[in-house]
């Protein structure tokens, strides 16, 4: 059975939220496109969950307005917003069976029993729960509980899905599996989805666009590739990428970055007294001391599997380099590091803004 889902946009317009004197969200403007899978990414305390809860109606904004479709819902009760939410803790009703849990949204809407049964079976089948309908949540594994929560969210075909770190209670292997299923499901249903997470891998893999929040301020809203390749500021650059981007403190003078006597040609020019050079581990190469831009010595070598992480020390700065898996080097060995020029980022140390 396939249902054409309404694809609706969601708009946050100048949303502010304070808890007492604490500002959690500072004027959030965010337009989610119809049918989009948007991930709100941020560390804990960044305001991402608050933004989601304001959209769900569980929290009211201090000022600003929220639109779902062309309807303003800022002061509309949650149940009239036509949204469903998956909680981090799943929030299953422990005294109800799987079928009753999935069917609860239908029950409170007074859907006829026969109709409800069909829809429950349909939703359960979509998350491969068909044969567990008569179990209680306590008899399920973590992954199965997660599926019940998902089924309960999809069963009434809402116009927007909200997901608050739905995978963070699963173990790593299951998380990867559920991530793929979630993406597939969203693709099939085509429902506008807003997904909150602190996990950059989830954000990068799931999202069509990622919105990065920090201290209640939207740092960048772009596709995962854009965010990775073209970060708007130092925070975004350091937040995304594993291992994180290397940073070296120094000065920018013309198109040359100076640090501890080393000079590196950069693709931008300007004059910044306190600048930061950012370079991703995969954009560095370990070479012989004579060939590199920077002279350094090996601090530690970690074999990951498909590659090796080499941490080198140059002056007081540590730089992580992604090297081939057969890399051979000893701690203390003198080497050189070659930086790919057009993959270097320069930031203003005072503001964190990118120097372009």
């Amino acid at each position, binding site marked *: 059975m396939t249902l054409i889902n309404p694809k609706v946009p969601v708009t946050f317009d100048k949303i502010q939220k304070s808890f007492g004197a604490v500002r959690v969200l500072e004027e959030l403007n965010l337009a989610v496109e119809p049918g989009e899978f948007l991930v709100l990414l941020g560390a804990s305390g960044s305001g991402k969950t608050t933004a989601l809860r304001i959209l769900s109606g569980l929290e009211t904004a201090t000022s600003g307005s929220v639109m779902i479709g062309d309807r303003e819902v800022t002061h509309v009760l*949650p149940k009239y917003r036509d949204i469903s939410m998956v909680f981090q803790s799943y929030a299953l009703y*422990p005294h109800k069976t799987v079928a009753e849990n999935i069917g609860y949204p239908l029950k409170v809407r007074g859907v006829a029993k026969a109709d409800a049964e069909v829809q429950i079976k349909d939703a359960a089948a979509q998350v491969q729960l068909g044969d567990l309908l008569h179990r209680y949540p306590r008899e399920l594994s973590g992954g199965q509980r997660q599926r019940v929560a998902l089924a309960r969210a999809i069963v009434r075909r809402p116009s927007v899905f909200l997901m608050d770190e739905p995978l963070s209670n699963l173990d790593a292997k299951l998380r990867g599996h559920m991530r793929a299923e979630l993406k597939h499901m969203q693709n099939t249903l085509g429902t506008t989805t807003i997904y909150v997470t602190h996990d950059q891998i989830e954000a990068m893999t799931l999202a069509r666009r990622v919105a990065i929040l920090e201290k209640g301020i939207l740092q960048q809203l772009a596709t995962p590739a854009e965010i990775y390749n073209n970060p708007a500021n130092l925070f975004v650059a350091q937040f995304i990428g594993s291992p994180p981007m290397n940073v070296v403190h120094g000065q920018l003078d013309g198109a040359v970055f100076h640090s501890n006597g080393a000079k590196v040609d950069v693709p931008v020019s300007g004059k910044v007294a306190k600048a930061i050079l950012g370079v991703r581990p995969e954009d560095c190469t370990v070479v012989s001391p004579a060939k590199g831009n920077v002279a350094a010595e090996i601090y530690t070598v970690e074999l990951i599997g498909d590659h090796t992480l080499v941490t080198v020390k140059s002056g007081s700065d540590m730089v992580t380099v992604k090297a081939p898996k057969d890399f051979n080097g000893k701690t203390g060995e003198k080497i050189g590091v070659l930086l790919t020029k057009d993959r270097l980022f320069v930031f203003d140390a005072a503001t964190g803004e990118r120097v372009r």
Partner: protein
Amino acid sequence: MSVTGLKFEESRRGLMERLFEAPAIGKMSPAAKFVVYGFLLFWTIFVLFPIYWVVITAFKSAQVVNEGPYYIPFVDFSPTLDGWRAQFATDPFCDLAAVGRQLGLYVYNSVAFILSPFVAIAPMEPQICKVFLAYTNSFVISIGSTTLCMIIGSMAAYALARIQYKPKFGNIFMFVLLALGAIVATNYAGLHWAASGAIGLALFFLLARAFGKHFDAQLGNGDILFWIISQRILPPIVVIFPIYMMFQAVGLIDTHLALILVYAVANLPIVVWLMHDFFASLPIELEESAQLDGATRFGIFWDIVLPLTRPGLAAITLLTLILNWNEYILAVFLSLSKAQTMPIMVAAKNAGERGILWWEMCAIIVVMIIPVIIMAIFLQRFIAKGVLLGAVKG
């Protein structure tokens, strides 16, 4: 110092270690076991002996009781049914039919009471022996007041656990002043009570709207909770005279309604206080999820919250039932004969001309404690743990 001195060696365990060392964390050493179980055994006997004494005394004759302590029936003394006959065989109407008739009378008299402003229906007079009257009264009053108390108390506790109330201190002060004003107006200015009440309320709402926002000092849920529990600090005897006079003025003395209301109010603080903890410990995501799913607040309470607090509800219902079942002081003042409860029957055996009729008193006590034991066994099934299992987390 040699290194070996720092190591424990099992082979060198002495008698003391053997006795006092627990085999594992969470287990008891042999000596501890002996002490603990010995004490528990002693305590069990200590607690159960009075009950044993009551049961055997119920089967003693007057002579056996007066001659001195006899402990073992059939050996020390031969049991009789004297105490039971005096209660159940001498009075007329000491049968199940009388109990049925009495239950019918409650319904009939309740309807008569409700209709009394419109039609005068003479209430029926009970036709039942004293013990059975007190027994049915005790049932009706304790079950009635417990039900009322649990309904009001659990809803109040839920509201206090989930809704943040911020009553302004100034508004409360204003309300008290206006209430006093209404009382004065009714009693000294000859205003009808309905009129003065309505005027007082109207004034309160107008003034609260007009000035409420200018008051700064406000109370929170914690203050309200403490206020509620503080009602239990006063001993009941302190408030019994005002209650007596109030009920006398409205003609409720010696009625079941009076006792049901007073018991419900007296136990409300306990119910609210205890249930509040149960509600507050529920994960709030369940209610938020239900809210998003479209349930109403009452729907959430009924469908999600109450089933999950069933162990608490059962335990507190049992506690309230037992408190009501055993209540004596309030019943002494508020019931004369028709609404007498079992504890008063028991106490009455102390006041006869022939001294204390221990064997009769014990027979009544035996009858009185049986339902409590049955209730405890019945409700104990619900006081199980683990209902919340599987609600949250993986």
